[in-house]
């Protein structure tokens, strides 16, 4: 079966004009990402702020135009100019439930918009379809005539999801879709997304900074650092036995009762300035196992174990010396 989505060395660089002198510097927001999504799976994309995960998500729905590389949807290359056909198949749900809905439109109208734009339904059929969508995301029918400002964060995020589902996409991208919500509501939305995936056979790309959330919803996860994917593999394997030291650091850094008084994997310093990435492996200044080679040579992504990719010169060393937290 062809994967629903394939990315081949996709790059998106921004030229930022910064400062008074308009010095131009290039930020490699997405720096050669290749990955594939199988139909019906959930891939979690995790990374810290500025790692390029949101840019990548936006590139997939052509809100950003990739500079180079190829995106194939259902085996067909996606032409940048043909956004319309892609958009019926791939939809995105944004992070902030307070800015992602037009404040002046009633919920019914918001959900109806995609159906009207694509002339899919009208009149009584449209009404029925919108009611169906509202019920599908677990909202009471009474919200249809409310404005987004009258809804809570969780309800708004459900409306966002309903709008995205209106076109019956096969791929749904959730860009930090639960990050702005309280944990109790976050759990509701996560369960909703899981349920929808099963009911509608959706493929889900779940983008988040929260590794806990990602491991909960995803079958596979991909870890990004400074525009590159540094590790990718089945969630249980990555969680239990990460190949990349950054993945290990990320997991160890999640605060938890289990960590009380326990030795952490030390992560030194702050993430580097994306305008001036370090030479060699971008992670080497913070890496506890960095060697000389890491300072000069950028490690390519390799499949070290079946189905498990990592970009580290010492991917298997980390596994053997028992530094893992799992």
């Amino acid at each position, binding site marked *: 079966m062809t994967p629903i989505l394939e990315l081949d060395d996709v790059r998106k660089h921004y030229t*930022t004009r*910064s*400062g*008074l*002198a*308009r*010095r131009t510097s290039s930020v490699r927001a997405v720096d050669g990402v290749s990955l594939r999504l199988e139909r019906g799976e959930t891939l979690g994309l995790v990374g810290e702020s500025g790692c390029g995960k949101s840019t990548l998500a936006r590139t997939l729905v052509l809100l950003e135009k990739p500079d180079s590389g190829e995106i194939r949807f259902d085996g067909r290359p996606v032409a940048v100019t043909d956004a319309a056909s892609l958009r019926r198949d791939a939809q995105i749900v944004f992070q902030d439930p307070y800015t992602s809905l037009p404040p002046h439109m009633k919920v019914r109208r918001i959900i109806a918009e995609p159906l009207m734009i694509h002339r899919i339904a009208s009149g009584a059929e449209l009404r029925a379809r919108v009611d169906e969508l509202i019920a599908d995301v677990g909202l009471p029918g009474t919200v249809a005539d409310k404005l987004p400002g009258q809804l809570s964060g969780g309800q708004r995020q459900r409306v966002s999801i309903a709008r995205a589902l209106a076109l019956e996409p096969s791929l749904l991208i959730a860009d930090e879709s639960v990050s702005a919500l309280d944990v109790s509501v976050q759990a509701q939305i996560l369960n909703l997304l899981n349920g929808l995936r099963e009911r509608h056979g959706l493929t889900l790309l779940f983008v988040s900074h929260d590794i806990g959330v990602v491991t909960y919803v995803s079958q596979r996860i991909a870890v990004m650092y400074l525009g590159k994917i540094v590790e990718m593999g089945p969630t249980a394997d990555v969680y239990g036995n990460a190949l990349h030291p950054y993945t290990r650091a990320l997991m160890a850094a999640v605060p938890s009762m289990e960590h009380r008084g326990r030795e952490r994997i030390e992560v030194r310093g702050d993430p580097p300035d994306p*305008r*001036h990435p370090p030479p060699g492996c971008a992670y080497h200044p913070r890496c506890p196992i960095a060697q000389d080679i890491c300072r000069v040579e950028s490690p390519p992504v390799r499949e070290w174990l079946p189905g498990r990719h990592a970009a580290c010169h010492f991917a298997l060393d980390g596994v053997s010396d028992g530094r893992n937290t799992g």
Partner: protein
Amino acid sequence: MLLYTIRRTAQMLVVVLCVVTLVFLLLRIAAGDPARLMNAPDAPDDVIEATRERLGLDEPIYIQYLYFLRDLLGGDLGQSFQGSYSVAQVVFAALPNTAMLAAVTVLVSTVIALALGIGAALTRGSWLDRSVQVYVAFAQSIPSFWLAVVLVLVFAVQLGWLPAVDFTGPSSFVLPVATMAVALTPILIRTIRQSFIETLQQDYIRAARARGIAQRKILLVHTLKVASLPLVTLIGLQSGMILAGSYVVENIFNWPGIGKLAVDALTSRNFPMVQGAVLIAAVTFVLVNFVVDMLYTTLDPRIRLKGAS
């Protein structure tokens, strides 16, 4: 910073060139044939033709434009229609008078506005705040020309305390400056009050209080330094309004500045003079805003240092 200054200067020069061009075209279109204007309305055609040749007006418009630019670079704004003196001389003689009036107005207004604006911001909802608000509401409703007339009526005609017209000494400043300050202060006060209130609500003010910093220091260092920044830009932007105000005020108080010069020249259809006055006013405005912009960037480290590595 140096690079920015150069870039900004180049930008300003482009704007100046556009302004100059626009003034040239506008006056040509609005005023029509200068040769006809220079002579009496019933002058015979050959006289007009001769004038036209003398002034180079028989050339195509773009050649005239180039001549105009060339003369301008040499500081030559042409000859007055009435009398045979140079427009540049007259205009540059009038400029300091307007500049002085504007400078005193800005100074007085800023001091008043800072005092009232900060006072109102700190005592929100008090009688002081309310009185300041009432002043702002009324002051911005009073048309300058009317206020000038009323001030003259009361202080010069009825009471005879202050001179109404002509420049005779420091007391001559009182009425014109008062008129212009009433027009300028409302917007300054509002801005300062608003920006003070907003700054006081910032997290870093709360954090400074949490560190135990004294109130006086929070106000005079932490708040004032941030809150007074918008004032700089505002004064630059308002310089156009001050200029416009000076036309009215100078005409009523018979103040020998650019504004009076322009209106007089217009009434007597003295075109080179009008052109000179408009040009000098426009260029001054651009320059003032340039200076203000540069000042702002030096004052605010957020802009000065942004992005530099």
